């Protein structure tokens, strides 16, 4: 029943642009897919309890790696795209063992400085990265000589990418690996005391998160066919965080819900970019103060209350408790 519903929804999601081919809406669908993946990559970092400002840089590394691989080396798109994520992941694997020794505030500031250095490198190393102008004419994706040019085709690619990212992240959280990284955030000492090599798990989560950001970057590059360093600065990871906070950090559904709600906002407020940023800030404050579990947390709480009210010992406190338990179980 649930599987059937999921398949039906997916088919609907995949089919609509071919029936209703409005460039504006299809473009928005593509951007939603991109941001779902980006927000999921940040969700992994928040899951290990670290705020990373390096994710704009990881996205940029993936974008430039894939773009340069196709433009300068003539590598076919699928391999270049994969190498985008791998490039970001290898940089993460290189810096991760050192960076992850540092926690909390210091980690946030360290990744911030790292992100700035990477972006400054994109700006300054003009021969390779094209400086502030960035790279133009990045080829559209192609498979076996067929070039992907139509917008609905791009949308399908974005949808597949987002769904695969979601399935991967959810599988990670539901696996033993996910249980370990959650327990590391809860109590690292206790986790290590039962013989778990916590740093290795954190490194693995960091690298996968970077890879996801890198692939998103590669997708972004080949979709827009143009990239410049400013797209990978400070505000990119901030947007990923905003999406996570609004959707809810505790579950992989959070980034999905957050992206679906927030991505259309800039398009609706296109003529007034300041109001878009303002609404981001105010929404963020409201959610942090009143809805710290995000929309998904709110939905879970309501569902918990509803079930508790139906059940024999229905008391409101039980609903809250059940909501919490469900959150743990589902997350």
């Amino acid at each position: 029943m649930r599987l059937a519903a999921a398949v039906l929804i997916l088919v609907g999601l995949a089919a609509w642009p071919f029936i209703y081919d409005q460039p504006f809406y299809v473009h928005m669908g593509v951007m939603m897919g991109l941001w779902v993946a980006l927000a999921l990559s940040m969700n992994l970092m928040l899951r290990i309890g670290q705020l990373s400002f390096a994710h704009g840089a990881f996205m940029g590394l993936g974008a430039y790696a894939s773009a340069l691989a196709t433009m300068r080396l003539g590598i076919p798109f699928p391999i270049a795209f994969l190498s985008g994520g791998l490039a970001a992941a290898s940089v993460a694997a290189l810096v991760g063992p050192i960076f992850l020794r540092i926690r909390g505030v210091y980690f946030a500031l360290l990744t911030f400085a790292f992100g700035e250095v990477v972006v400054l490198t994109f700006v300054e190393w003009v021969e390779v990265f094209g400086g502030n102008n960035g790279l133009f004419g990045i080829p559209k994706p192609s498979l076996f000589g067929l070039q992907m040019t139509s917008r609905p085709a791009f949308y399908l690619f974005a949808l597949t990418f987002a769904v695969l990212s979601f399935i991967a992240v959810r599988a990670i959280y539901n696996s033993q690996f996910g249980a370990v990284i959650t327990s590391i955030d809860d109590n690292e000492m206790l986790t290590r005391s039962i013989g778990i090599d916590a740093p290795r798990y954190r490194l693995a989560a960091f690298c996968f998160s970077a890879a996801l950001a890198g692939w998103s970057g590669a997708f972004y590059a080949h979709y827009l066919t143009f990239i410049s360093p400013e797209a990978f600065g400070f505000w990119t990871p901030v947007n990923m965080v905003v999406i996570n906070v609004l959707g809810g950090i505790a579950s992989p559904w959070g980034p999905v819900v957050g992206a679906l709600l927030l991505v259309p906002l800039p398009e609706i407020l296109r003529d007034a970019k300041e109001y878009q940023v303002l609404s981001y800030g105010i929404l963020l404050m409201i959610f942090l103060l009143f809805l710290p579990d995000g929309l998904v947390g709110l939905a879970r709480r309501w569902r918990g209350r509803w079930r508790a009210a139906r059940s024999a010992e229905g008391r409101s406190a039980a609903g809250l408790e059940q909501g919490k338990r469900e959150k743990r179980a589902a997350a």
Partner: protein
Amino acid sequence: MTAPWPAVLPHCCAGRHMLLAQILSNGLMTGLVYVLMALGFTLIFGVMRIVNFAHGELYMLGGFATLILFGNLGWNYYLTVVVAAFGVGLFGVLLQSLLLKHFIGRELSGMIMALAIAITLQAGANIIFGPEEQSVPRPVTGVLDLGAAVVPYDRLVVGGFTLVILAAFWFFLQFTRWGLAMRAVTQDSEMAAVQGVRPGFIHPLAFGIGSLLAGGAGALMAPIYTIYSYMGELPMLKAFVVVILGGLGSIPGAVLGGLLLGLVESFFATMYSTTVATMIGFALVIVILIFRPRGLLGRTA
């Protein structure tokens, strides 16, 4: 990326020692402003354990206060700086008691809340004042020729003001009961609370003083650079770098780190370019965080 903070260009570079003197004086002048920014930032972190991502926006508010009071209403410049600093300080007290109060001891949410405040203030300023860069006339013009180095008078005013503020701040911390309470909270907030230091009073006070320093810095620098909604981003970056150099929460560290960064940047900006100088700053941060995560003067955990 915003453009790097422009360094004062050396006017006379007759000899090697003259170049060095110019680098030193430029570095000191910039460094003093870095100290002003970093002190508030580090005080807020030390007392409340909150990384104030909105620190640059408080600097920006100081700039806009100068635009209105000095630029539009024609107030006396020095009075403007004082009023702007205290105004931003009061605003900081408000921010703390309304918004940030709820996030003490919650590092991750606290950082995100500060980010939210930064975003909101920046967008708000953009809506109210428009995206154009605006400027106010310089209150003083001309340069002081020391022979070996040339210092513009307006930078000298900034330097002098900064020294006065630093002295007052140091006196406050060392010789007043509130200052003592603040130092106690920085060292151990629980023990300080046991001794009767009320966090409900010290936290807004610390945030207010930190905001005052940032607002004052913004008001001081407003005539030298242009005033616009993103003007706080770069000074906040510098404050980050400085407090990490000196150690988050360490007051002597902020002074040492600020002057050090000013001098290092001045050297690399004169010898190479401002971008190289910025890169060096961030590279320093990464190296220090890796080898001495608590900074040069930070306490060990």
